[in-house]
Structures are given as structure tokens and as C-alpha cells.
């Protein structure tokens, strides 16, 4: 298991940290190992929408959305439509809030989270490739492998759980519009939260 995790994320498509795709461009493919040692390849999910969610239980903004149940509800709503939801931890091992795969897995479980898998990206390669700057950060890849959304989970940049009620959930909105055959009205939004704890 540890060895599998140590394998970490391996890139199929070489990208540098400063060339993250914009919305409307091809999403970089990747292979990553999840918290249970299973390997996942983004391109294997072709034909489905894939939500990538950067997470870090040490981040108060992440806790806002998990503690209020908002993240779990958003995950369930998406996966019930056949969307693949990948939660990604790009937190480096040396970071004080780094959680080992098993601990991260059980934290997610405690919060009723329902992602399709929780991926370990300790060297930050996936996060850098997608330009994820904060936790939470959301990227949505469409069934053809194109990046169709990048940004925040919702419209109110705060760590106050009370704001979840009144904020517009950008993920629900984007998926709703996509499934309704409409263009995504807010395709790039300002992600808010803590900085992703990338390896220096």
C-alpha cells in the first residue's frame, strides 16, 4: 500500500506548472493512486463527466464544506447523475496538515463524503497541472476530456458555514447546465480557500 502510494501521480502528458489548461482546453491526463491503493487514469473515464476536487482536511474552507455537509451533498448529487468525482490531496508529506491515505480516507468517511475515489498527489503534479491554487478547488472535465469548469465550489468566499445556504453552488450549477444541454454560465470562477500545500 505504502509503496503504491509512494508511486504517486505519474503524468502521461507532460505539463509544466505554469501551463495549466484554461477552460475550453484539453484536460491533462494523469494516473494516480487512491487512498486504498487502487490506480486510476483520467482517460479511463472518457464518456463521463469527471469532477476533480482539491481537498485538505487541515484547511478551514474545506472543513466549512465538509462540516456543513455541503461537499457530501454535492458529491452525492453529482455521482447519482453518473459523474465521476475524484477528491485529490496535493498536500506534501512534510506539511503539518498532511494526512496519510488511511487517515484521509477515514476523515472523508467521518464526514459522509461520497467521492468516487480519493487520490494522493503528494508531489503536487496533478494539482500544478490543473493550476489548483486553493483547497477546495474544483475542475470539471467533460466526457470528451475537455476542461469545462475551473474555480470555486461556490460563490461566497468565506470560511463561515452559514454562507453555504446563500451561496450559488457552482458545481451543481455547472453540471446542471451541462446535463440540461446548456453552456456553463460560470465556467471560470475565483477559487478561494487555503493555498494548496505544494511541495516546494
Amino acid at each position, binding site marked *: 500500500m505504502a509503496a503504491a502510494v509512494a508511486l504517486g501521480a505519474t503524468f502521461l502528458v507532460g505539463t509544466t506548472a505554469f501551463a495549466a489548461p484554461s477552460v475550453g482546453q484539453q484536460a491533462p491526463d494523469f494516473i494516480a493512486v487512491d487512498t486504498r491503493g487502487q490506480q486510476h487514469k483520467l482517460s479511463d473515464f472518457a464518456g463521463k463527466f469527471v469532477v476533480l476536487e482539491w481537498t485538505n482536511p487541515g484547511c*478551514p474552507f474545506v472543513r466549512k464544506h465538509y462540516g456543513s455537509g455541503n461537499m457530501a451533498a454535492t458529491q452525492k448529487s453529482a455521482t447519482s447523475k453518473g459523474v465521476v468525482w475524484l477528491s485529490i490531496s496535493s498536500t506534501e508529506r512534510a506539511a503539518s496538515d498532511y494526512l496519510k491515505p488511511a487517515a484521509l480516507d477515514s476523515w472523508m468517511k467521518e464526514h459522509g463524503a461520497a467521492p468516487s475515489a480519493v487520490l494522493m498527489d503528494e508531489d503536487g503534479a496533478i494539482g500544478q497541472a490543473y493550476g489548483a491554487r486553493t483547497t477546495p478547488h474544483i475542475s470539471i472535465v467533460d466526457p470528451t476530456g475537455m476542461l469545462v469548469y475551473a474555480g470555486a465550489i461556490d460563490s461566497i468566499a468565506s470560511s463561515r458555514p452559514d454562507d453555504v445556504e446563500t451561496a450559488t453552488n457552482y458545481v451543481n*450549477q455547472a453540471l446542471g447546465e451541462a446535463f440540461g444541454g446548456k453552456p456553463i454560465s460560470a465556467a471560470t470562477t475565483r477559487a478561494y480557500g487555503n493555498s494548496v500545500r505544494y511541495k516546494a
Partner: protein
Amino acid sequence: MNPSPSLLPARPTSGVRGLSRTLSSDASKAARISATAALVSVAALLSLSFPAHAQLSPKTSAVVTTSHVRAELIAYAPDGVAPGAPVWVGLQIAHQPEWHTYWKNAGDSGLPTELALTLPPGITAGDIAWPVPEKIAVGTLANYGYEGTVVLPVPLTVAPDFKPATSLTGSPDIDIRLKASWLVCRQECIPEQGDFSLKLPVQGSTALDKAGFDAALAAQPVSLARPGTIEVQGKTLKVRLDGLPAAVQGKTLGFFPETGDVIHTAAIPGKDWTQAWDGAAWTATIPLADQRSARPTVMPVVVTLAVSDRQPGQPIAWRAEAPVSGIWPTSAPRAEVSPALQSALAANAAAVPAAAPNSATAGSFIAALFGAFIGGLLLNLMPCVFPVLAIKVLGFARQAGDKRGHRSAGVAYTAGVMLSFLALGGAMLMFRAAGEQMGWGFQLQSPVVVAVLAGLFTMIGLNLVGVFQFGILVPHSLCAAQVKHPVANDFLSGILAVVIASPCTAPFMGASLGFAIALPAAQALMLFAALGFGLALPYLAAGFIPAVARLLPKPGAWMETLRHVMAFPMFATVAWLVWVLGQQSGIDGAGALLGLLVCLSALAWSFTLRGRTRMLVSGLLVVCSAAVVVAIGGNIVRTVEPAVAASGARWQPWSAARVAELNAEGRPVFVDFTAAWCVTCQYNKKATLNNAAVLADFEARNVALLRADWTRQDPTITAALTALGRSGVPVYVLHVAGKAPVVMTEILSAEEVRAALAAL
């Protein structure tokens, strides 16, 4: 999120895993103490014992200390609080080493500090005068913020007519309260907040914190005389600022856009971005962010001198609001759904039952025919139809043995049923063709039809219970004709069955009827015929299959009893129709109808009298009835506004716009298309939609409940039903943004609703 009224020392959040917690600050404690002091001073005033409250109210320093910052509300009013005098308040944040808070544009992550001031009337606060920030690199990202100690000053404006509240001490002061929240970060971030309060003397100087304000005001950018220009060129911004002082020219400047999410914040000067002096103009080429969410037309920007170049007493930063020209890179088009996905979605939508009537195929037509047939069959069980059927079958028992008679009766009844269905269906199609918005059951949207039906059912009920016999009412010749032609009687009872069954849209029938509307007339009429055949079948079968007839009990005295018993479902139907009319025409309409029914019943009874008495009594009753009609008959057709609010706050009135609005908010919407005259609707409303588990599920999933009341003619509801592939009520629909609407069965079970909700 108010601080808990605890007198314990402030216990700040600490550590990465500490939950965000409201601070109970010294400041808020002080505020409470001064509030108490105010009460005490009122008491003091009353007792005239000791005049001053100052001794009771400790000098508040308005400090909140956490393990990451020491935050203090400070003030600077060298000339006192007077109109025109400079008055500043500010939050001074002293950060622990390595920790920082944020500027108005926080950069790649973080949040600007928020200040919410509460001031006495006559004093207003301006915006935070943000001192110039530093660029703080965090790994591969960068933030704009402050380390060390910073003061975020806020200018106060004193209105010319400002009058301070008088104070017992003779030296008035103003009460300033601040609710502040800030995000303090090292690598990890902790959201913190505090409540502060401060009393600022109106007279005399408040200059204790002069040094802090001086530093903050010295760190304000100076506005440039000219706005400069910003041009978007490919994936870069070309910035040009003119009018910078000569002393600055040639120096390397820091660049801070006030607009977030435009430039690549972590770009390293000299490597990722360049700057140059073009004479007195400063120019720079700055890379855009990969994930740029803003495309401003004007960008306020700040340039700063490096710390080593700053001179005391000289400006250190300049600000310009530069118009943006050029075209933002179009690498971020709006995301469209691919054609392949689009067709898959269309296929999904078509899979919803009968939601796509235009895609009628032979298979779906046969399915619709079958559905209509089953629907018709189930109509027999409706409370208003069942007594008719029971009495018809009763007739078989009376004529036991007359096989030929049974057959012709069965055929006649079936013909009556089917022809009247065809007539109703034809009428509905004609209305539709003429552009009228009509749906199944439309006839009951008319109060007159409801009133006539109530009268008819009253007469049937009175007849069943034995108040009168038809033989007495109608001329003998007609009676004889009926005996001579029992077939005609059966035909007429077939029509009666349809008239009374039509308001009830039975299960499986709704979809078929909706389907019928979109079909060519011939096929549509076939569907109505199938419906009629279903309704007539039990009687037809009883006529043709001797086994069914043999199953019937022998005629006897029980038949009379059954007749009487069957009167009560009829009266129950009358009660229901009166209620329906009440929905349409209000309490006055329902009352008028009841009055007329009483007249009608009395009339029916009077005809059973004999000789002169009969003439006299019925004549009187006719006059009375006419008087009643003239006096209150109009109330029956007078429509009133539906009592929507009476259905409870849980259900809101339906409108297509409201559905779209709620869906846009991300809320699922459940719509109950209903009508007062629809029995199935009432049953579902009471049984399923009031089910505690169903309501709990609605609540848990934040489902908005809308009710579309079709009791009266409403073209928008009819149109919505048509769009759903239906033409009558009940219809239950779950709308979820981005999904095809889920249309549920007409006899709604709690399980079905819960399953649909569970799939959300």
C-alpha cells in the same frame, strides 16, 4: 456567530486542526461591562447618589489576542470629533512571525480582512485605506498581504449636524463598535474574528496611536495624475504608467493589481515578467493567469518602491485606474456540451414516459391503447362510478335467465359508454384545434357543470333511496317505452357512467390521454374508444359470460336494501361536488347550490303526492325554487380567488417561472398538479403527500413544493401539463436542474416519491 457571553478569558483557535471558533474577546467583555455600567448609571441618576460612571467603566483597549495575531481597534482624532476634522479608526494587526493577513486582492489564495463598523448616527465610515501590501510567496503560489504590524485605517466622516449624546461626566464620547474577521495564514490558514469596542472623546485630542496611523497613511499609494494604459496582448498585459516622479524613474517597482484573478500572481520579476522605463513612463509585461476568471475593462493598479528605495517622508507607492484595451485571449470559451453528449441527453429525455409524443411509433401507440383500456377498467372503481355499475349488475340478477336480454343490455351499455367517450374526446380535440387550452376533465372547471351534476346525483340518490320512482315523474307513455326498450335504458346509463366518471383521471389514463392530444384525430379517437371499452368491459362481460351472471345472487328483498345503500355513495358524491363548487365559487356559491338542491329534492318529493295537493305543493315549490334561483343562484357562477394560503406555507403556488427560479438556486422542485374535483388528487394529497416520511424526505433534500391548482380553467397549467405529455390531473413531477423531469404515476405511493427523492 456572535461571541458567547462568557466571562472566561479569550480562548483563541490554535493549531491547524483547531476548528474555526468565535472568539470571546476581552473587548466584548468590556462592552458588556460598559453596558452594565450604563444601566448602573441610570440607577445612579435616579438615586442622585454618585454622578460618574467612568469609575465603573474600565478604559477599554479593545484588544483581541489570538496565538497568531494581536488585533486592536485604535483611533486617531487629533482635533476631536467634529465636522471637517480628521477622524480615523483602524484595526491594528500585529502578526506573529511568519504569519500574515491579506490585502484587498489576496492573490492566489486567502481572503481580505473584513471590517464592519457600528457608529452613532451622524458619523459614517469610508472604505478601508489599504496600505501597500507585500508579495508573499507560498510555494509556487503568491499572496498579497501584510506581515509584522499593520494598521488598516478607515476614515470617518462627521455630519455637520452631528450631536453627541450628552454624558453625565460632561465630556461626551462616541461609541465605536467593530466586528472584524480576518484570515491569518502561515502555510496553513486560520479564520479568526473579534468584536471590538472603543469610546472616542468628542472633545479633545485622541492621538495616542498617531505613530500607527502615520505609518499606515504613509503607506498609502498616491494617485497618479494620468490613468496610464493596459493592453491585453496575447497572454500578457502590457502596462504603461505615466507621471511617476523623477526620483522614482529607473527604479524597479513592485506591481499589485487590485483586481484579483487576472495576472499570474506568482510570476517572478525578471523571469516571468519584465519592466522597463520609457523615459518617464514605466512599462511592464505581465503574464495573465492560466485560470483567469475576470476580464475587467478598468484595472486599478498599485506600483511600489522596493523597501530599500523608500525614503522617509516621500511617497512609496502610486495608484492608477488604467483602462484596459485589446482582446482578452479567447482560450477560455464558454463550455459547450459535445454533440455526442447532447444526443445521449436527448435520448434520455425521450425515455421519460410519453414525454415525447411526437416520437409516436406503432409500438408506443399500442401501449397507449392498452394504457387507455386499463385506465377505463379502473374507472369502474371510482366512488362515483361504482354505484352505477353495481345497480346495472343488479338488473341482471332481476332478469336472471334472460341471456339474450343480458347480451343486448351489455352491448347497449358499452355503446353508450364508448359513444359518449368519443363525443367528449371529439369535443376536447375540437377545442384544442380551435386554440382553446382544454384538458381532460375540463367540463368540471365550469361551476355550472358541477352544479348540474350535483343536481343529477341528488336525483339519482333520492331515486335509489326510494323517495320517488321514475314512473311517477315521467309520463306513462315514456315509461312504457323504457320497458319496451330496455336497450335504450342501458344506452342511457352508459352515457351516465361516462358523465360521472369523466372527472376521475384513473391510473394509466393520464399518459394515454396526453398522448392522444398529439395524435391525428382518428388515432386519438381510437384511444378514447379504448378508454370507453375498458370502462364498459365489466358489464359487457357480465352480459356475455353466463358464468358471471350465474355468480350473481338470486333476486330478493336484499336488492331493495342494496339500492338504498347505494344511494349513499351518490349523496357522498354530491357532498364532494358541493365542496368542489365551494373551491370555485366560494362559500356563497356552495350555500346557494345546497339551497337549490333542497328545492330540487322537495320538488321531486312533491311529484309523488296525489291529486290537488300535488298541484298545489309542487306549484308552490316551483315558485319558491324560482325565487331561490333569482336571489342566490348567481353566487354559483361567481368565481372567487383560490384560497392558496390555506394549503399551508409548505406548498407555494406553482408557476413555470418559479420552477426555473428554484432550479437555478439548485433546489429540486416537486409539483402537484391537482384540482378540487379530482378524487385521485385528493386521495394522494391526504395519503401520500401528507405522509410524515415523505415530508421528512422533502425537507431533508430541500425540495421546494409547488401546487398547480387546475380546479378552474388555467391556460398556463394546461400548457404545462401538455408539455409533460399529460392532459389531466393528477400529475406529480419532480424537477431537478439539468435532468429531465420525473413524472410519477397518478396513484402516488410514498415509496415512489421517496425512491425518486433518493435518486437525487
